[in-house]
């Protein structure tokens, strides 16, 4: 490495304001006598100048906010095109009402539904549902891009601090939750779900975030499911409001959803 090669590296640091003394003074005096390095310095500076900040296009904020308001739910894990979610949310709203009503009937058979205050919040639960329930749409460019991003995150493994996607380890406790036709929840709350949207919403909550130890304590909830391929059970623990999920075979993990979200879903 010639002397000038060494100085070139220092020029880059110098322009970034990262060069410390005594190298800073040394470089400055070198630049005064070396035209080759001055040229490099000029070139680097010209690059910096031409990489200034540009104004964002008009309407960007409005578009982002429109998408964000349509989608709702700050705990959501997966984005998709705005607008498409509406019918899903309407369907989900209806299904939530049903779930709440049936849960109310299950847990307190004699309480008149009209005086049951719990029935109200279910409508708000719609906005708190994390994740879009749409199946991945292969024709949708934006969701494809997101999928790519997610797979890259898990592939390079360098990024857990910035791991905004909960799907980097196990995606779901079941390979094909859409096949589940009946989900019976027991424990701290009871509900029997048959609506595919509702069931999908519960499984969204159970997305794996991080593997963990299975707690010693008895499970807070048991989820019995029936699908075309057979039936099975999952156990859920609530630790400080966060859900841990186990498949009963010793594999446990922190789920994406919280107990509050689960209760909102099932009433």
């Amino acid at each position, binding site marked *: 490495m010639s002397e000038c090669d060494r100085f*070139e*590296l220092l020029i*880059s*640091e*110098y322009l*970034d304001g990262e060069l410390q003394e005594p190298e800073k003074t040394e470089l*400055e005096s070198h*630049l*005064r006598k070396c*035209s080759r390095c*001055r*040229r*490099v*310095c*000029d070139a*680097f500076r*010209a*690059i*910096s*100048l*031409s*990489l*200034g*900040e*540009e*104004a*964002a*296009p008009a309407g*960007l*904020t409005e*578009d*982002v*906010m429109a*998408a*964000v*308001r349509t*989608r*709702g739910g*700050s*705990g*959501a*894990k*997966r*984005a998709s095109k705005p607008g498409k979610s509406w019918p899903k949310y309407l369907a989900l709203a209806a299904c939530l009402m049903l779930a709440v009503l049936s849960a109310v009937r299950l847990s307190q058979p004699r309480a008149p539904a009209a005086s049951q205050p719990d029935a109200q919040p279910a409508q708000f639960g719609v*906005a708190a549902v994390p994740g879009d329930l749409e199946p991945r749409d292969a024709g949708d460019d*934006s969701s*494809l*891009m*997101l999928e*790519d*991003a997610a797979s*890259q*995150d898990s592939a390079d493994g*360098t*990024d857990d*601090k*910035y*791991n*905004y*996607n909960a799907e980097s380890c196990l995606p779901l406790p079941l390979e094909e939750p859409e096949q589940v036709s009946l989900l019976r929840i027991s424990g701290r709350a009871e509900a029997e779900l048959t609506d595919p949207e509702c069931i999908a919403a519960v499984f969204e909550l159970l997305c794996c975030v991080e593997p963990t130890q299975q707690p010693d304590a008895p499970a807070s909830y048991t989820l019995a499911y029936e699908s075309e391929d057979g039936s099975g059970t999952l156990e859920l623990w609530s630790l400080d409001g966060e859900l841990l999920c186990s498949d009963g075979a010793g594999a446990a993990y922190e789920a994406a959803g919280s107990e509050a979200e689960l209760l909102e879903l099932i009433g």
Partner: protein
Amino acid sequence: MTREEELEIIAQVRSGDADAFEALVLEHQNKVYSLALRMVGNEEDARDMAQEAFIRAYNSLGSFRGESKFSVWLYRLTSNICIDFLRGRAKRKTVSLSWEDEDGEEGELEIPDERFSPEAGLERAELREAVRRGLAQLSPEYREILLLREINGLSYDEISRCLRLEEGTVKSRIFRARKKLSEILIREGNIPEASASNERKGGVDA
């Protein structure tokens, strides 16, 4: 916006106030868009990338732990989205050349859409255009690290934490990105090879 104000807004958004997110978009949209623009090289895609970055930031705000600045987290999200997009685009391209950078990493090279005239001087607009084309010849990873520094103004320390690289690696990659870019500009005649500074005394007055 101070960091405290920003954390306050993030807390509001997390508690369900979607409208509060607007302040974050307004605060960061220029930087996010500029980063996306230099990453993907055209305004239309850059707008899509920026929009996607904000929507994703909103959706995954729950996983932002405040260990880094929100802006650093957001820029990283943006550049990730752009890199994924570029990879997808590289795969789809039928006519392309390959690059191989200093890390031996291969990728697809975008063919410049027009030739550059060698007699062009240091005209700002032309230089910018040339830098845009030069950037397209860097691998997305080199582009990312240079832009996080140049556009987003992150320090070496912030970049090293954000990209999980040693600070020495950050330093040398930024240098190599600049060096490569300047070689392209010199080759294309945008930066005169010998004349620029010879007539001047003291290239550095900063």
